């Protein structure tokens, strides 16, 4: 029986498990908790985070047990090469779905810039709407004066790049963040090479550096937001420029947070000596995810900040 279990020709199908249904329960509590918080605040109440955090805790704890179980099964030799290929396909196409999630927001940015704002400014086939409702609005990007500036107060200043010459002194935060994140993509690759070379010290060093770079990125991102809110008057309600700026950079920041969290777990797994040259899927998946958030950032830097 024990031999049969580790038979590499058998695709391991776990018998059953309580994790998934509890994760679903946690997710449900989380989103409905968040929903009631939002609705309560919108109705003038204070809102309560209790249900949200209950759900989040259930979700997080269960996922911890779930992943621990999978790691344990792998260490028992239950995961054959074919199962590992399933993981690779799964992670790869999950990242593709994330790409499409960002595509929706990039699509909104392009549509707003190319069509919506210029039509409101009096160009093209829909010009009459703009002329009739808001004759004073003039189209520009970033939009500093909204069609109805009383309802949506435009920003005092935008985040647009001041030109390459002005990126260095004082340092332009988005540029600094680009450097940090690009560097972290390289260091995580070095960490991967270290696994291949069975060099645990190097792995831990490079992974540690990657984490420092990642958290530095997040720190400066928060700095940038504080700067935008307090000094530039650029908020979520600054009209379409603020809307697209924050949803794109915000969801990217959220993904960096997730990626950094996943890499942190890989860091602790590396300390425990989990990874072998031919058996390091958890690390590889985390690093692919990290490269993905890096690529998204490069697109953001080009389309949100520079162009």
């Amino acid at each position: 029986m024990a031999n049969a279990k580790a038979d590499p020709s058998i695709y391991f199908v776990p018998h059953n498990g309580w994790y998934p249904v509890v994760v679903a329960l946690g997710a449900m509590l989380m989103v409905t908790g968040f929903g009631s918080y939002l609705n309560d605040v919108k109705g003038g109440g204070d809102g309560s985070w209790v249900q949200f955090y209950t759900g989040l805790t259930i979700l997080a704890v269960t996922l911890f047990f779930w992943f621990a179980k999978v790691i344990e099964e792998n260490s028992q030799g239950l995961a054959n090469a074919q199962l590992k290929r399933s993981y690779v396909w799964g992670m790869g196409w999950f990242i593709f779905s994330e790409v499409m999630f960002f595509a929706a927001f990039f699509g909104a940015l392009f549509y707003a810039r190319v069509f919506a704002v210029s039509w409101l400014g009096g160009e093209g086939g829909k010009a009459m709407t703009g002329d009739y409702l808001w004759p004073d609005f003039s189209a520009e990007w970033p939009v500093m004066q909204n069609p109805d500036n009383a309802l949506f107060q435009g920003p005092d200043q935008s985040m647009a790049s001041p030109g390459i010459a002005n990126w260095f002194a004082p340092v332009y935060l988005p540029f600094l963040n680009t450097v940090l994140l690009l560097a972290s993509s390289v260091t995580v690759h070095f960490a991967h090479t270290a696994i291949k070379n069975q060099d645990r010290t190097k792995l831990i060093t490079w992974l540690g550096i990657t984490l420092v770079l990642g958290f530095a990125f997040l720190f400066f991102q928060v700095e940038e937001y504080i700067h935008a809110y307090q000094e530039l008057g650029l908020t979520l309600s600054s009209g379409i420029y603020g809307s697209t700026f924050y949803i794109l950079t915000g969801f990217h920041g959220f993904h960096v947070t997730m990626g950094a969290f996943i890499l942190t777990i890989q860091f602790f797994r590396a300390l425990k000596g989990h990874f072998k040259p031919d058996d390091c899927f958890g690390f590889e998946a985390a690093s692919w995810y990290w490269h993905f958030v890096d690529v998204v950032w490069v697109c953001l830097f080009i389309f949100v900040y520079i162009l």
Partner: protein
Amino acid sequence: MSEVVETHAGHDDHDHHGPDKGLARWLFTTNHKDIGTLYLWFSFAMFLIGGMMALVIRAELFEPGLQFVAPEFFNQMTTNHGLIMVFGAVMPAFVGLANWLIPMMVGAPDMALPRMNNLSFWILPFAFGIMISTLFMEGGGPNFGWTFYAPLSTTYAPDSVTYFIFAVHLMGASSIMGSINVIATILNMRAPGMTLMKMPLFVWTWLITAYLLLAVMPVLAGVVTMMLFDIHFGTSFFNAAGGGDPVMFQHIFWFFGHPEVYIMILPAFGVVSQIIPTFARKPLFGYDSMVYAVASIAFLSFIVWAHHMFTVGMPLAGQLFFMYATMLIAVPTGVKVFNWISTMWRGSMTFETPMLFAIAFVILFTIGGFSGLMLAITPADYQYHDTYFVVAHFHYVLVPGAIFSIIAAVYYWLPKWCGRMYDETLGKIHFWLSFIGVNVTFFPQHFSGLAGMPRRIPDYALQFADFNMLSSIGAFIFGFSQVFFMFVVIHAITRGKKATDRVWDGAHGLEWTLPSPAPYHSFTHPPKVSDAEAHS
């Protein structure tokens, strides 16, 4: 891996657990057959709930004037009927079929990621619990139509829209995980010899559907997220006062929405392509062209979305592009219909219930396809837009299209699932009731629509009275015949005659090499794929 083991792998001496006892079996299962069963029963429950909403709508429309429900409630019924049927009935039913069939068809022991498979399912009852609970909230449930256009769904929405948004997020997560599982299973778990171009068409259509899901469900998540931000965080994506655009909502929504209709029809093509060869006792005509046609339809589905928006105003070049691109879809669809008919041509046909539903699919889906072509013509669409003609069109592709194929699949594979045959007489009664019901319901809607009756209204002008009364009578016939369907299925499961392993003498495919009912674990070792069981 090259070792060849008897196909009746269920009798191997490896540690084979049977199912757990009681509720734990269903809550904690990782077995693709259990999960498939859960999906199918869940979708049937949603089908009945969504159906009851449809009957509320048809009862109200039986006569002109307001008789049963308030207009506000009527709007909630049309909205929730659409959402529940699309996301709760049709999509989960196809995922249930995928779960049951794909591993057996490609010779895999289970879905590639069994625990995630369980999660994909169990998210759904929670998501629809949230969705249905909105109907009982203060201010009522979503009332802005299943397409939830902004600003109806943002500025003017009831508070419950927040929960609706999160329910959509959950459903999206479920669909994405489900499609990742389908892709990993098909690409990584096929038995040796089951090459891509030997896969049953149901597997092919699901592979392509899974890619559609992966590409558009995140976009749906994105658009509802923007709604959430507009409602709660002061953004102005869909508010022109802040430089946004309500029309932008429609573009992003329909970038999801059009591929979504193919998500609901491609697996139906797959089901019909399995059933017709069996009862025509001929191999499928033009297998390769079927695969290429499905792939082309999937590709085209990404570049036609604005045909839903001809009347909102868009540049002429845009209208022309979207019109021609949409009409282009008729070409691969025509290839498919031609191939189904050619498969039947000079076959030794018999007309068991699954075949009846499959033939009705081919005919009635084609009618829905033709009315789709009419709607694709931009100038004509100016007249048809938002009328009952549109309602007739998409119900023809979804009810006698998607849903007939699901029913056909249930009759066709039920003996494999539970080891017992349904009663042929009862099945035929169910078919004819459904066939008559569906046509009496939806055919008159073409006429009331062409005559100008708008959709989504609880009251209408007197000249539409006869068509509406007919429609309502048909709807009640159709609705109650689906309750009868449940009876036929339960009757089969509990007292049906024992089914043979092959079930249908013309059936080919690995699933028919297994015993009936299929053992709890099948193909623990990959089977040998003989030419007779491959599609050709």
